[in-house]
């Protein structure tokens, strides 16, 4: 699955065998730049298997966390804030509407008024993400691979909350339910592709799919499965942008918004919303992996991250939702509300993995014949 992209001899032969040859394309005059890596029908689709919010965590050379990005430590969660607000010592009696209900109200109706509790923002030089605005501002980060001007203000808000860090239950749940809930199938199709290695103009469209992920016994996702595209109920998820492919990396040139479904334990089926989505994904015939940068809509994000879970699950990772909301509002850096002037979105990036998939558009008659022997070779282990 993890093979690097290169135009190997084997691949050339594979392409030739598979019947989507240069000859057939150039012969019909379809595209002058078409090369042997062009997918059949000049289109290829990838189904997301994981969409995660990456949080940079500093480590020493032995790989142990040093938490440099959290010099003031990890934030308190809802339990700790509750205990501090309503001490049980001295036999003091509290009314439930002043305590538990009041706290729930703060979570359900959050405000951007100043926080009563201390909040530790993440800081430091590094964060994952992309340079969205082409500027190098003082608040920008450097990515671990050396890219400068990285826009990721959301990292400051969530970087020192346990829930959002590696190995937290929230991460596990989010990944598990993204994969297991059928509603969450989201994919993108590239069209007008004349080369999977270098092509200065391809079209990228996202869709919601209708079929489950396919993985093998070891949990590896399998390329080549089929997804039916839903155009009836999922118009919100259909968005088109322009992109180019440079040395096998897909890069957005004209972004649009990215919506994706995040159903969780049948409780709710929220949609997450990233504005100005910049894809930067390494493509192989089997996989697409990389980052999608953009500006996440704050209200959508808050609903998805803090309301679809109960306070119970949120407490697994010490998230104080009301405090987090205030922090995000403070740090928001895009899309000001025309009425209030307050920013409504915050820069960030998604870490995504996707696997190649065959798609059936609803207007197409499902193929009752025809085959795409794209994957002409399999190696048998000895």
């Amino acid at each position, binding site marked *: 699955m993890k093979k690097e992209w290169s135009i190997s001899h084997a691949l050339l032969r594979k392409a030739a065998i598979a019947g989507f040859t240069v000859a057939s394309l150039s012969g019909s005059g379809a595209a002058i730049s078409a090369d042997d890596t062009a997918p059949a029908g000049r289109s290829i689709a990838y189904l997301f298997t994981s969409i995660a919010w990456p949080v940079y965590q500093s480590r020493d050379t032995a790989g142990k966390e040093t938490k440099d990005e959290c010099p003031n430590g990890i934030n308190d969660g809802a339990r700790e804030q509750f205990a501090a607000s309503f001490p049980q010592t001295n036999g003091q009696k509290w009314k439930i509407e002043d305590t538990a209900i009041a706290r729930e109200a703060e979570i359900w109706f959050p405000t951007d008024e100043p926080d009563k509790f201390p909040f530790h923002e993440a800081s430091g030089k590094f964060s994952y993400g992309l340079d969205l605005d082409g500027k190098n501002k003082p608040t920008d980060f450097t990515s671990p691979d050396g890219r400068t001007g990285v826009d990721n203000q959301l990292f400051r808000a969530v970087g020192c909350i346990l829930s959002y860090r590696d190995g937290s239950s929230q991460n596990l749940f989010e990944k598990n339910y993204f994969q297991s809930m059928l509603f969450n199938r989201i994919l993108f199709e590239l069209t007008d592709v004349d080369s999977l290695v270098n092509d200065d103009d391809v079209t990228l469209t996202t869709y919601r799919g209708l079929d489950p992920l396919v993985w093998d016994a*070891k949990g590896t996702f399998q390329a080549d499965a089929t997804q039916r595209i839903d155009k009836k109920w999922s118009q919100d998820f259909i968005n088109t942008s322009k992109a180019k492919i440079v040395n096998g990396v897909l890069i957005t040139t004209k972004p649009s918004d990215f919506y994706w479904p995040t159903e969780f334990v049948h409780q709710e089926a929220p949609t997450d919303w990233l504005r100005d989505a910049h894809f930067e994904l390494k493509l192989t015939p089997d996989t697409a992996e990389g980052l999608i940068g953009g500006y996440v809509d704050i209200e959508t994000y808050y609903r998805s991250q803090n309301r679809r879970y109960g306070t119970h699950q949120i407490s697994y990772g010490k998230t104080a939702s009301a405090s987090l909301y205030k922090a995000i509002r403070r740090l928001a850096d895009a899309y000001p509300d025309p009425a209030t002037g307050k920013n409504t979105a915050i820069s960030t990036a998604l870490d995504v993995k996707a696997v190649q998939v065959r798609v059936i558009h609803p207007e197409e008659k499902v193929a009752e014949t025809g085959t795409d022997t794209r994957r*002409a070779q399999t190696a048998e282990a000895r």
Partner: protein
Amino acid sequence: MFRELLFTRFMKRPAVVLAAATMLAGGAVATFDPSLAAEKASAAKGSNSADVGTPKRLRLLTTQQYINTIQYFFGPDIKIDVKFAPLTRTDGVLMAGTSLAGVSDAQIETYQKVANIVSTQVLDSRHRKTLVPCVPKSEQAADNACAAKFLSGLISYLYSVPPPKDHFSILVDEAGAAANRLNDFYAGLQVTLEGVLLSPNVLFVAEKEEPDPKRPGRSRLDAFSQASRLSLFLWNAAPDAELRAAANRGDLFNEKSRARVVDAMLASPRLETGVRAFFDDMFGFDDVETLSKDAATYPFFLGDAGADAREQTLRTVVDQLLIKNKDYRDLYTSRETFMSPSLGLIYGVRTGPGWRAYEFPPEAHRDGILTQVSFLALHSHPTRSSATLRGKALRELILCQKVPPPPANVDFSALNNPDATLRTARARLSAHAQNPVCAGCHKITDPMGLALENFDGAGRYRTAEKDTPIDASGSLDGKPFTDVVGLGQAVHDSPALPSCLVRRAFSYATAGTVPVTAEPTLAQLNKSFVGEGYRLRALLKAITLSEGFSDVTQPASKPAAPEKTASVSLPGKIASKE
């Protein structure tokens, strides 16, 4: 040369053993030749009293026959999750094992368990309302009239022969005694049904013979035995009430009315159950249940791929042979089939959920069922393909030829620890075949198997093995071809193909190996199969109407000599690792 020799001999001898090593030595071929005996037997034909039959059998119901029988009578919502002891495949037919199988103590316990499970469901408060045809005077006590009504219905259906009247009344008494003892009418029926399901008349079919008035001196199966044979063959279940009634009326002894009964059975939707069971048996699909592929080598072979592959081929068979009534031989060249999501992954085909009809394009190299995953993956190793296993399966399962087992003390190192220079299966096998001991058999299996080398051990298409292009040329009985399409055509054209189906179907229908006496029947069936354009329905009808199907041969004074292969007579020492 011996290719031709093999071919002509093979034509003449339906069950000939391919005694390869002997042929290589230029020697005489088989040690046992049923066709010679058949000639003798047919010499007596014309007198209308020739022995053309099969022995009467004592058949044990298979798991699926038991389930089909119960569910046909009590309804498909009676849940039965059981697996009886496995059967022994005999001369290529699993069903023949039902005439040999014994019943162990543990198996009896399984029968008792399933009898308890079935009877409890049948008499539970939900089912009793519809399955018991009367209401007892009291639910707390015996009601022999109502019990008799219930029991007479089920016994006349479940018993392969009607029990004597006094025995029936004993069972009714038992139900009454149990009802009184347990203070529960339905509990009394439940305990009785539980016991009845253990009856030898339910679990076995003991075929019975009687003098055949039309053929003086000959015996035939009696009407009930014939009804059972018909039903187990065509429907894979015990005969229903209509068929029993027809048997009772004597319809099965009259040519015209017998044909009417068979036509009705062939027109029934239950025929599909029977045809599936037969091909499942013939294709050796019982092995799918233990089929597993190495997940690291073939990650795309998902957990349900084996079951789907079996289903794909059975659907193809039903569609081609029953629904479209096509030539049997076209199964080996047709690209029409059905697709499921997990198979789509292996075939590289876009497909939605569930099953849908699908036709491969010519360039897919998927011509005929030999190129389906069910054949390719089943006859491979967990981590690699096997030209030998595929060739052997094709010879044995599809063409009814025998491939001798490998001799002892073979050096398999070239296969198992291949020299890096031997990159393809062809190269490794040809190294292997330089050993004269191995060469004999491998010349039988490999030229056909190598044509399937374009498919890996899980059935996915490939053009190279370890970056070396695959040469898929080969030959079948002297007919050369360059790829798998040619192999399909050669199999299609092989006279062994239809005659093997005839042989397997007859053996399956009569639940035993084909005795010498039945060879003339087979010859006739072969002829009529050709005449009918190789249509399965016509063959099924011809088999059920043939004299061999109902004629009873007397057991030979001693069992037939075991078939020998030339390889057993090879001196053991030659087979050392030289």
